[in-house]
């Protein structure tokens, strides 16, 4: 394999890893503050992508046709709508089950994911068919031999990086972030210190879900197509990534996202090379199998869960 093709794989892997990392950061944030897994996260991402698409169609209808304006409005509407959805889910579905067994929360959010998925399939116009997603980014590219660096991928990669960096800065550098970290460390003590527990939990869910909406838009812009089923797989992958890195740790989530996409790329490249005749479609089988084996080896992930350091 030549260097150009290899760098193409690496670049695509980075791109996917960024999307996975954005989903995983959401999982890790929720787990940090409330010790719950919100499994509907992937489907929130899908709803975010569909909200973006609907916004785009709305903007087309009222005659806004500058791609930049469209993109910004789409990102804004999708992020805010999903932040609201995330906060509502937390308030009415996750918080009431705080004292129930953790399995119940997991089940409830799994079912909520099904509700969101089915609702889009049934009630979005022709929701069961894949939808073309508009190409809004410049399609310039620079070629280096067999490797082409596309401007849109570069923008998406930087955008994802910026989003994660902003969330990271909010959590580590602001007073709000201090409150989130305090709740993650010890909810009771945080309350004694005068932190509004419910507000912080809702806010964290809003931030995570907003990230998911951005992830959904990135996914749509990258593949130029969305369908109602993307959320399930992306949710499971994001969860795997968060667990691979170690739940509750934001660096772990980012690391896990890139590790998972690396596993997929390795599977796609090496399986056909090692066993002639196998298809590259085994890459997900390979990646999930490695995750299962890895979990048996290090049950709490690469960066192990520490009580004193969540988020």
């Amino acid at each position: 394999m030549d260097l150009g093709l290899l760098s193409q794989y690496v670049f695509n892997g980075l791109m996917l890893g960024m999307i996975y990392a954005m989903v995983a950061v959401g999982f890790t944030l929720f787990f940090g503050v409330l010790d719950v897994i919100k499994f509907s996260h992937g489907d929130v991402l899908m709803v975010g992508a569909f909200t973006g698409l609907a916004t785009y169609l709305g903007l087309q209808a009222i005659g806004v046709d500058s791609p930049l304006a469209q993109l910004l409005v789409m990102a804004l509407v999708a992020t805010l709508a999903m932040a609201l959805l995330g906060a509502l889910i937390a308030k009415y579905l996750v918080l009431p089950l705080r004292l129930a067994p953790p399995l119940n929360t997991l089940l409830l959010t799994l079912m909520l994911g099904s509700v969101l998925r089915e609702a889009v399939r049934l009630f979005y116009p022709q929701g069961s068919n894949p939808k073309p997603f508009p190409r809004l980014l410049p399609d310039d590219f620079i070629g280096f031999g067999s490797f082409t660096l596309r401007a849109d991928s570069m923008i998406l990669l930087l955008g994802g990086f910026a989003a994660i960096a902003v969330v990271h800065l909010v959590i580590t550098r602001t007073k709000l972030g201090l409150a989130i970290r305090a709740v993650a460390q010890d909810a009771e003590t945080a309350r004694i210190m005068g932190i509004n527990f419910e507000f912080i939990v809702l806010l964290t869910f809003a931030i995570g879900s907003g990230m998911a909406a951005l992830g959904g838009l990135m996914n749509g812009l990258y593949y130029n197509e969305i369908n109602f089923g993307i959320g399930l797989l992306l949710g499971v992958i994001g969860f795997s990534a968060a667990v691979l890195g170690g739940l509750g740790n934001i660096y772990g989530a980012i690391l896990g996202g890139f590790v998972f996409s690396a596993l997929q790329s390795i599977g796609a490249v090496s399986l056909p090379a090692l066993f002639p005749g196998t298809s590259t479609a085994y890459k997900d089988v390979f990646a999930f199998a490695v995750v299962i084996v890895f979990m048996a080896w290090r049950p709490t992930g690469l960066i192990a869960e520490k009580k004193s350091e969540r988020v």
Partner: protein
Amino acid sequence: MKRFFQAQSAFPALASMAAVTVFCGLFLHAESQTAVMGLTIGAVVALFLLARAGWNALAAASFAGHGRSAHTAVLLGVLLIAAAFYDQHFPLLMLASVLLYVVVCLGLNLQFGYAGVVNFAGAAFFGIGCYTSAVLAGHTPLPHALVVVAGGLMAAGIGSLLILPVLRTHGHYAALITIAFGILFRVFLEVNDTLGGPQGMKVPGMEILGWKLNDNLQFGDVELSFYVNYVVLSLALLAVAFMLVRRLERSWIGLNLDAVRLDEIACAAFGINVARWKIAAFTLGNFLAGMAGSIYAMMTGFVAPNSFTFGDSLILVSIVILGGIGNPWGLAVATAIVLILPEKLQFIQEYRLLLYAALVILILLFKPDGLLPRQVRNYLPGWKPRPRGESPARSAKAVQ
């Protein structure tokens, strides 16, 4: 006359069973949407009124007190329904599917109802059974009775690959492993050309000692649908599985499993081998799912990856939750509702996953014990737990 209406008498249980049998027969027979709708609403209203009149508690107490005759009544009821539809394929197919799905859910119930081992890949283990019977019955001369056992063993064997990660992890991490496995299994089937890829495989009908289950039965002038064979076979499997699960629950094994679910640390301190019981429950549950799967595949004659999606696993989990986690009778009722209702009410067919998911959310929020909550073990017939400051009505319910 009055003694018939006491909890000690078997009459309330038998009368209820007779009523349920007649209702199921009518429901399966109903063709028009209005009739089905009317029956559904009628049943809900009747159950509500009977519960207000105290009949349900009476029937349940009588059911518990007369286990043997009540169980016979249930078996008879199923056979009567099968006999009533002796020449119609579709109702019999549905009946047999319900019976087999109850077996799968019994397996899941063992896993996370008793031992607390989460399994979100129920459909995958069912699918392993289906594909095992497709391969073995289609391409080897192995007797079909052994194929069914092989289906169970295969599911248990592949499940045992997951044991190490499942044992080493807890809660969410363990859930992820089974979810990942379920998705991995489906993707694997879709891309594997040897196993038919997305188109799936054909499965030959079952044949036990020269008795071909896929031929219609001829008795003089009366021709029985071949699904009657499968109903009888599934009923036999279900009866054995049901008895096994009930006995396990009642025995010291069931007590150990409950203890493992409720508090692993306390368990280990009392010398209970947590890993052993988790492995036992997980393996036995998968074995049941695999056996049911291999019969199901031979009955429908066809397997494809699309029947074993993550959504199907979720439906299985929702059956267990809806029925009342840990209560085998509850999940039998829930399976019947979840499988038959959408088939009969065509307009909800499309919305079925949405409805189940919403229903499970509501159940988890407002009635986390399910429709028929699990009761405390009743080792001594007629024994009532002492009411601890509870109202008399409440303590009467607790002996059900």
